[in-house]
């Protein structure tokens, strides 16, 4: 370790939620550095704040204290439009419950991130290239025959692969996966992990959170989250 540049760095992250009158502290000073090309697994019990951490890392939420910096840039200092652009171009999210849009078919779900960042004219100009990229991704994920299907026609594993396709659409430098196998049986989950491993081999930086030790072991590096802090 240490020979590659750090692209993601979290320092003294604090996050608490208001629950009625009381505040619940979920993260109490998390420090974390991820090098480019690393496959990091964050393991922790259910409710330990893994999803919260991942949302902070991906700019979906802001910490109460501490900083997240990506490529040396502080996310806290970004304006909201810069943050939107950051999420669109730099990060890909994969969620436990896939979160595909029911009204769109598989292909459309995959190229959604490109569509979101383009107006009508811009989209017409890039549509062909975007479709080709989406189709290529589907092929790599073994879903080439499913392009015109609706999410409800797919199995859980297939849906998660579509979600991975969507996350990779804009060639993000960082892939964040929140219990990507949590809702799948072990064989199917294994398939998803193999996809992630392949991506890692191709140079993709990945941060995956899980509560399952066997899943975590598939990663290059494992970090444990407990009591709102990273255990060393």
């Amino acid at each position, binding site marked *: 370790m240490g020979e590659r540049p750090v692209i993601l760095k979290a320092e003294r992250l604090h996050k608490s939620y208001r629950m009625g009158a009381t505040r619940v502290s979920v993260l109490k000073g998390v420090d974390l550095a991820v090098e480019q090309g690393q496959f990091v697994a964050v393991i922790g019990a259910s409710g330990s704040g893994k999803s919260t951490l991942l*949302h902070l890392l991906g700019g979906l*939420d802001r910490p109460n204290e501490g900083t997240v910096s990506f490529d040396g840039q502080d996310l806290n200092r970004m304006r909201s439009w810069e943050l939107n652009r950051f*999420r*669109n171009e730099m990060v890909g999210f994969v*969620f436990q*419950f896939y*979160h595909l849009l029911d009204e*769109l078919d598989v292909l459309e779900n995959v190229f959604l*991130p490109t569509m979101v960042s383009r107006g009508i004219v811009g989209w017409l100009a890039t549509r062909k290239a975007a479709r080709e990229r989406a189709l290529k991704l589907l092929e790599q994920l073994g879903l080439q025959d499913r392009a015109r299907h609706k999410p409800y026609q797919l199995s859980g594993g297939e849906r998660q692969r579509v979600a991975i396709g969507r996350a990779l659409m804009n060639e993000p430098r960082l892939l964040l996966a929140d219990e990507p196998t949590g809702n799948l049986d072990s064989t199917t989950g294994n398939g998803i992990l193999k996809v992630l491993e392949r991506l890692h081999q191709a140079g993709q930086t990945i941060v995956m959170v899980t509560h399952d030790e066997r899943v975590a072991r598939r990663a290059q590096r494992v970090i444990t989250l407990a009591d709102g802090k990273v255990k060393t």
Partner: protein
Amino acid sequence: MYKLKLIIRYLVRRRITHFAVLTVALCVFIVVVVMTVMNGLVEEFKQKNHDFVGDCVVGTKSLVGFPYYEELMQALEATACVEAVSPVVKNYALLRPQYGGDRYVELLGIDPVRHSRVTNFAQTLYYRAADPAKAFVPVYEPNALGCVLGIDLALWRDARSEYTFDATPQRAAFSLTCFPLNARGAPAMAGTTVVSSQQFYYSDNSHSGIARVDDSTVYIPLDQAQSLCMAGERKRITAVHIRFRAGAELYGGCEQVRRLWSQFRQARADAPDGRLLDTVTVESWKEHRRAYIAPMEKEETLMSVMFSLVGITTVFIVFVVFYVIVSHKTKDIGVLKSVGASSASVMGLFSGFAFVVGLLGSVAGIAAGWLFLAYINRIEDWLYSRFGFQLWDRTIYAIGEIPHEVEFHVLAVIAFCAIVACLIGALVPAWGAARLRPVETLHGSRS
């Protein structure tokens, strides 16, 4: 771009949006139909009153009337905006048919030719429409005195508001009885009694389309009316009706007449019977008939208020529908934000969706309303022939067809309001949705 795609998909795939469109369409439909019919009825009624009265009236409510009208008419005719004038005597009389019975009527003494230049009197006639000069000449008794009866005094109207006319007016004689008043307003002795009577033959009928006029007015020649109802040295009338030239502005014209009248009156303040001029007022046709028009307009206003309430209900329904849609779609909002969509963009998505719902609803509602109005009279006819049911009982309402002229600007206003209603209804939930942090919407929810 994703917005357009998602708007279309939400529209096509979500059953609840079909209901939203249907709700908007129904409200638009109801408002279009009611507004068109009400507006049509009021406009038609106003037009009939305008046609009946002319543009402007210089007149008095006194039955004694006022003198010097010949000079007044000369002065009026010399005024730039005046096209024609007609002297009128209005009074009440007792009508006695030959075979007994009696009833009170309103008497209008007119010069049929002059009156036809100011009002649509000639067009309201049946037999003498082409030649109003002969309005008071009975075909069956050309040398006798004729009178024109309001159509409901002369003929029966059937349930479809239609009259059955004979080829020539039926021979019938009436006596009209009045109390003649002298210039001081006292009953004048006519021979040995205080009443004067005159026999008339039915020469034609007049259909003004105003029920109150048609069922109680008898038209007789001006000089007959003057000798029946008035006594005294100087001839008097109760009103001069005026028609303005084409293009003359109604209020400007009335103002000009008013100025002329006040000079005219001042110049004759000390003339004999000059005080009779004090009761005379100058009114536009709208003012002159306001006692009849105002209730109709009130009714229309009331309708508008009631249907504004329908509009508010629409806003509320749309609000509820959008609330449901948005709460079903919070996950989508989270997903869209996680891939980089801005809050403004999400807001745009739902406002655009509301706009399209409003637009489709309006188009559907207007199309349905238009179609319904195009067939409304046939539908009413069918209902009547099948079930004997009539929306407007024609034995009471003097209307022929139900108005169905759709006005483009009314449609435009209604569609605009419907779309605005949808936008307002969608604004609150859409704003709430756009503000949602993606984390809150994505947390643990299943797909």
